């Protein structure tokens, strides 16, 4: 105890921890506890009945598959974008770098209606795809497009700092020793950026599963076909069926926490790379 006290030379411990915990309690803890209390009053049978309704199960499938597809595409595109931004010089590079963050800055509802207008069969992009028989808006493809938009900055911003730290002398050495570019990428670059890409993928996946604003407009919201889980929760809430909404929300929460846990594992390895091995 005494030792711990002697460590605290810097003043303000009590005050800052007090303020932190008070605000944390009001904003996060109490609402979470009320969710737990509400769940504890629910009947397990009812919960299982709610989450196994065919329409709810179909929404899990739609949400998961579109989020997974979008995040996989983002993992690949994110690595390419990060690579281009770190390794190459070209006109417009700083603008591209700034634009990557657009999905963070643009309200999701605006992104949603804009992507919808672009991809309906009379839209600029949609009309082109309509000619070859592909419909984007109001299908699962549309949902995936919206989620790609939402998720892209997560991967780019996770991979970029790792690539910046990566010493190119290893690549040069491998090149001298006769390795071709494919081999250099596979054996030297990929193992270094893989955990970061995985982190970005996980963050994007977590965000995409719960995404609502950009998806509701482009999805068409057809039950069993293009109805995402957050929308089902929203409809239950509008009918004041809080028990069903909570039951479905619990499944989503468990899933998000599992992703968060996996991401934290990957991130632990990332920070070792960024801060160097000694730390």
């Amino acid at each position, binding site marked *: 105890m005494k030792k*711990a006290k002697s460590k*605290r*030379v*810097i*003043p*303000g*411990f009590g*005050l*800052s*921890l007090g*303020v*932190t915990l008070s*605000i*944390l309690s009001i*904003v*996060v803890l*109490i*609402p979470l506890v*009320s*969710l737990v*209390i509400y769940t504890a009053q629910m009947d397990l049978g009812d919960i299982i009945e709610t989450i196994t309704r065919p329409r709810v199960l179909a929404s899990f499938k739609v949400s998961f598959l579109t989020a997974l597809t979008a995040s996989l595409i983002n993992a690949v*595109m994110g690595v*390419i974008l990060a*690579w*281009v931004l770190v390794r*190459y010089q*070209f006109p417009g590079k700083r603008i*591209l*770098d*700034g*634009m*990557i963050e*657009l999905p963070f*800055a*643009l*309200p*999701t*509802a*605006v992104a949603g*209606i*804009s992507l919808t*207008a*672009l991809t309906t069969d009379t839209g600029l*992009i949609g009309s082109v795809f309509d000619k070859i028989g592909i419909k984007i808006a109001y299908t699962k493809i549309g949902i995936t497009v919206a989620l790609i*938009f939402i998720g*892209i900055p997560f991967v780019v911003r996770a991979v970029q700092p790792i690539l910046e730290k990566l010493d190119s002398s290893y690549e*040069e050495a491998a090149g001298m020793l006769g390795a071709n570019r494919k081999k250099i990428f596979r054996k030297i670059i990929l193992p270094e950026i893989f955990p970061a890409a995985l982190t970005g993928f996980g963050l994007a996946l977590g965000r995409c*599963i*719960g995404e*609502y*604003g950009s998806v509701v407009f482009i999805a068409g919201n057809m039950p069993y076909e293009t109805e995402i889980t*957050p929308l089902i*929760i*929203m409809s239950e*809430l509008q009918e004041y069926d*809080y028990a069903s*909404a909570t039951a479905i*929300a619990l499944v*989503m929460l468990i899933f998000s*926490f599992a992703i968060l846990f996996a991401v934290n594992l990957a991130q632990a390895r990332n920070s070792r790379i960024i801060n160097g091995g000694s730390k």
Partner: protein
Amino acid sequence: MKNEGSKIVKWLLIGISLLFAFLFLLLPLFTVISEALRNGWAAYKEAVTDEYTISAIWLTVEATVIAVLINTIFGLFAAWSVTKFYFRGKKLMTTMIDIPVTVSPIIAGLIFLLTFGRQSPIYPYLQAANIQIVFAVPGIVLATVFVTFPFISRELIPVLESQGTDEEEAAALMGASGLTIFRRVTFPHIKWAFLYGIVLCAARAMGEFGAVSVLSGHLRGKTNTLPLHVEILFNEFRYVPAFAVSSILVMMAVVILIIRSVVEYRGKGAE
């Protein structure tokens, strides 16, 4: 080292990146502007100066300012206690701080509905005190604070962590007060990260849709924020006004991106 092959790969990758950015980032922005101006300036001006739009702008500004204020206070104190002191449960606390960004906005709305809504145990007391939280402005503000909760602390903690505690300890041993240490020693280090956090927080706060949508009563002129107003207009097939209102948010987003770039650039220069 550079041969023809690597040049082709280089321009191929740059081409893919620019095409992606054009299709997914630039085109949606242009669409908002062109759709907003489809019926000319007069229609645009009418939509933007509509009384419901104006009241939505004010509510959005109000929620954003309060969210930034609360999260600034929280962010500074949380970052200070997490990085300058050792205590039990620190890891648990930082995990709790991150929870709001990992849950779906709809679930964020749901938990506030359960906390303050009709079936909550504290609802009778709130009613007795005549306090309305859900389906009213306080609910919107709370939801906005929640979804942006870790945005500022998350920017500050890594910077303070890498800076260590030596300087603060030295200042404290020389007799400086907490406030002086913070102002003179700590703050100069975190200036840019702090600004960056505020920008991120403001961006997310003004655009929040899902959580606010759950807690708003959707009363035009009363509990309608800009993004909710966009939704109502769009669902009424009033596309030009919907995009005109969106264009306000697009302009705010572009300003935020520019500030962000400047802050990041200056921050890198200051290091």
